[in-house]
């Protein structure tokens, strides 16, 4: 059963990688919204967005 001395650390290593991957996923916002992405398939994307975002040009032009 001495093989356990190798297998258990290996298992823990994999666990560490999995948790690390999960942390990365939460950081990049993948778990913030679990509903909208599913709908995005159905929504039309050939229509222009309703409100243009405030980009550089808008900020530059005023004053």
């Amino acid at each position: 059963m001495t093989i356990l001395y190798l297998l258990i650390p290996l298992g823990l290593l994999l666990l560490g990688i999995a948790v690390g991957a999960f942390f990365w996923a939460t950081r990049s916002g993948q778990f913030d919204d679990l509903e909208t992405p599913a709908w995005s398939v159905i929504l039309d994307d050939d229509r222009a967005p309703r409100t243009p975002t405030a980009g550089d040009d808008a900020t530059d032009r005023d004053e």
Partner: protein
Amino acid sequence: MPIERPCFHCGEPLPGGAPIYARLGCLNQPVCCVGCKAVAEFIHGSGLAAFYEHRSEPQAELGLRAELAAWDRYDREDLINRYVYRDGGTAEVTLDIGGIYCSACVWLLENALRRLDAIDELSINPATRRAVIRWDAGALRFSELLGAIARIGFKPQPIVAGLGADANASEQRTALRRLVVAAAAGMQVMMFAVALYAGARFGIETHIEQFLRIVSLLVSIPIVFYSARPFFVGALRGIRTGSPGMDLPVAVAIAAAFLASVRATLLGTGEIYFDSVAMFVLFLSAARYLEMRTRHRADDYTQALARLLPETATCVRNGDPLVVTLDEVRVGDTVLLRPGEVVPADGRVLSGELAIDESLLTGESVTVVRKAGMDVIAGSINRMGTATVEVSRTGAATSLAEIGRLLDRAKADRPRIALLADRIASRFVLAVIAIASATGVAWLGIDPSRAFEVVLATLVVTCPCALALATPAALAAAASRLARNGFLLVKSRVLEVLTREPIIVFDKTGTLTAGRPTIVETEVLAGGGDAARYLEIAAAIETCSEHVLARAFSRFHRSGAHETTTASAQPGCGVEAVVSGARYRIGSLRYVAELGNSKPKSADADLDALTDVYLGDSSGILARFKIGDELRSDAAAAIAGLKRLGYGVMIASGDREAAVSAVAKALGIKDWHANLTPADKVELVSSLRERGMRVLMVGDGINDAPVLASADASIAVDAGTALARASADAIVLGRRLGSVVDAARLSIKTRQIIRQNVLWAIAYNLTAVPLAACGALAPWMAAIGMSVSSLIVVANALRLQRPEPTPLHDRRTRGRAAASEKARA
């Protein structure tokens, strides 16, 4: 712009979505949030840009001192305008307070802030972490208030109807991480525990057993020190403030089990409890996570309101359309609205015609037409047509922000029953610790080897969460459900009163009737003037009045034709004003006759259902206007619905007997009172209350404020743009009277659910605690029991948020009502 670039100011990674740029001289630097934008621009604007070259490390961890200094930015006029609602000398702000975990935190914060003299009013809700503070703006600056909160160790975040979205998102992320770590590591610990249990039964080599125990210890470390951290933090805070919350027994149980297991592992002998610790933390974190989701979902509606506003607007300046950010839209600007665009601020249509959809604000799906001279409110959607709009209110002054503020005030208002639950929970915790200690002493006498295990199970199994969570969770869920239907709950006592079989007293005009009065007949009584002239004078005076009947005259108003000065309104009687030099009164017969000292001639036997309005001057009564007002399309259905639910219904109106009795007959209401002055109405309500009845008053919220205030609870219907002054406990935003029936139905359900939750909590604790104290429960069973109990309470409260399936006939009548409404409009 590469996403990998950190925030120019604080060094945190930039969030996804539309980037924000700080404008520093001729350069635009990406920043992570509006706060950083403000600070960076402020630093640069003060000529301190060298700060960014000389600082040794990015801002992120500069600590409390930097945080205190950063509050100074909240003294900038534009930030104050965005967050603070000012009413004379007092100011009101809604804060999201980071770091509130339980009622003890609230206690601490309340006591610390009450010591400041400048604070007038303060209410904090631990379930939503919202605080509504009113204070004397002259005596305490906004930044000082925020600094005072930060000094105790909480993080205040001012919100405009739900900028708290970011705080919620990061709280949710952290909680999810803690939960996943607990789950992943917990499963490993369970796996080793199975091996060890099997080993104890069938034999295991000593060195393998010791190896598994050491590995279990290592894997448990992240569970205890990362996943279980909120429990320790909460417990410490509870001890420091002297009123322990439910975190204390949890933290004690985790720490004791973990330390005992570590000792056993290092010595190589004795029981280990790593599996119990792992499972306890896992299940409790799961319950907390779900509870947090409920809390956030209750915030969702407020945030949805805030998100209604576009980020930019098209302003017409010097004749050219120009895209500007929402912050730059000022009162008096002219904004161009195209089809599909969202109205960025409250304003009045200058030219053009729009089909406006206000469904997100009022719950009504019928689009309404807005022509030149009519008002539009921020957040509604322009479905059709192009128009220019003159901005009258922006930012925190808009009706939209007002709705948000009302919702926040509602969330911060905790009913007595919730306060009671908090107090019980706090004592409950002390009782639990006492019981656990007593059990420990008893078991030391019975079987010292099992004493530790039994104490552990007792500590773990008790569940005060169910008691503390039951009421606030249900109320928050109910309020957000109602808000979605256009029923704004300002004080939760409306729900309480609705469940106590109150008598519902309706005002007639503007409440049961549509409040769209029209002049049916004009009769000249004296003075020899022609009807058109009297109509014009009446219209000029009525521009100064907000009474619903005044709207009937607006059609005849010619601006500039008659100069009106020194108008004074006498609620329930009429208006007096000087028009083109002569003094006139308009209103009820008695009131108008008083001016001319003439005797009211009431011989006219008015048996029709029309309301009479008189115009008179010092010489006597000049004209009579007959005004008709039709019933709301769903009034009959709403009254019938309320009766079916077993409520008593009554009409109290200042109108004439004939008009009131006609309405009462049409609606099937037997109990009605006419010819009441506002004082009479107050008296009627108090006499009902003296007879032991609870009174729920439904009115239009403006003209009948004193009556609304004298009732046990009040609902204002169709307060329109005067939302801010409506003094009711709840406000119906749409024209649908049926919302009142929905609220009644939901309040009954809410009470049921609160009862179920409290009963469940009591029953569970009464069963589980004795079992654990007798040693019948292993620590891991206790862990499951307690966690499942919390989950049940939260899930039960969540049922209130689910929309009820509308019965088919209801839907059809509603559709018909909408269609007839449309036809009339």
